[in-house]
C-alpha cells in the first residue's frame, strides 16, 4: 500500500511536505497559487520538494516532469499523473 494511492491522500502528503519544508499553511495551497510569486518557492526549493516527495512516497519522481509547472495546481496534476493508478 502506497501512502499516495488516493487523490486525497496525495494532496494531504503534498500539503504536509509544503508545510514541513517551506512553512506554508494548507490554506495558501489553492490551485491558482503561483509557486514563485505567491508561495515564495525558488528553484532550490523545487529540487528539495521533489527529493522529499520521493522519500515519502518511496517512488521515483523524475524532476523533468516539473520543468513547466508554475502553480500549485500544476504540481498536483503532475503528481496525480505520476503517482495515481491509471483509471
Amino acid at each position, binding site marked *: 500500500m502506497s501512502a499516495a494511492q488516493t487523490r486525497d491522500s496525495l494532496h494531504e502528503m503534498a500539503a504536509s511536505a509544503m508545510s*514541513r*519544508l*517551506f*512553512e506554508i499553511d494548507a490554506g495558501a495551497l489553492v490551485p491558482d497559487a503561483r509557486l514563485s510569486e505567491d508561495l515564495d518557492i*525558488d*528553484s*532550490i*526549493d523545487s529540487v*528539495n520538494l521533489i527529493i*522529499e516527495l520521493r522519500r515519502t512516497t518511496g517512488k521515483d519522481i523524475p524532476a523533468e516532469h516539473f520543468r513547466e509547472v508554475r502553480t500549485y495546481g500544476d504540481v498536483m496534476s503532475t503528481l496525480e499523473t505520476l503517482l495515481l493508478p491509471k483509471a
Partner: protein
Amino acid sequence: MTGLGLFTLRVENADRLALSGSVIVANHPSLIDALLIVARARNVCCVAKPALFRNPCTAYVFRRAGYLQSDSADLIDDAAAAIRAGDNVLVFPEGTRNEDDTTLNFKRGAAHVALSTSCRIQPVTIDCHPRTLQRGDHWYDVPTTVPQIIVRALAPMDIDDHTDSDVPVTLAARRLTRSLRSVFVREARGFARFDDEPFPGNAMAGLTPPDSGLDGSVR
C-alpha cells in the same frame, strides 16, 4: 574613477575584507558595487545574472574570471566548491540593482551556500548618496552633486545558530536569509541619504551616525 571626481569613496572596516572562504553579501544600489568589493577583497568569485554573461562589455571578463551564473542548476555546488578552495563568493541577494535600499527582497542562494559549507557570511553595505548608476539609469546620467559612496564591512555573521540538522535546509535557508536581511534593513536605515530625508515610519532614522566605526581608508 574617484580621481576623475565622479564620486567620493570611503571604505569602513576594510580589514574585514581580508578574508577567504566566505560568502560576501552586499546590497546592490549601483553599477559599480561589485568593482568596489572586488578591488578590496582577494580571490572574489562573483555570482552574476545571465545577462552579464552575454553583455559584450562584461561577458569576456566574467567568463575568464570563472564567475558563476545565477540561473545555473549547479550554482550552489559550484559556489560551495569555490569556497572550499578558499575563494570568496560575492552575492547580491537582491538579484539585480535595487530601486531603494530598504525593500531588500533577498533571494536565498547566499544562505544555501553558507549552510552547505558552514562558512561565515561577511555582510557589506553600500550607501550611495545621492543614488547614481541605478538600474534604469544611463551610465552618462551624472547627478548634479558628486555622489558619496560609503562601503561598510559589517561584523561577520556566524551561521552556527542555523545549522541544526533536524531543520530542513529549506527552512534553515529561510531563517538565515531573514536574519541577514534584518541586518541590512537596520543598517540601511542609517544610510547617509536618510539624514536629510526622513525615513517613513521610522523613528530611528538618522540616529546611526554614518561615520560610526570608521577605520578604513578615506579617498
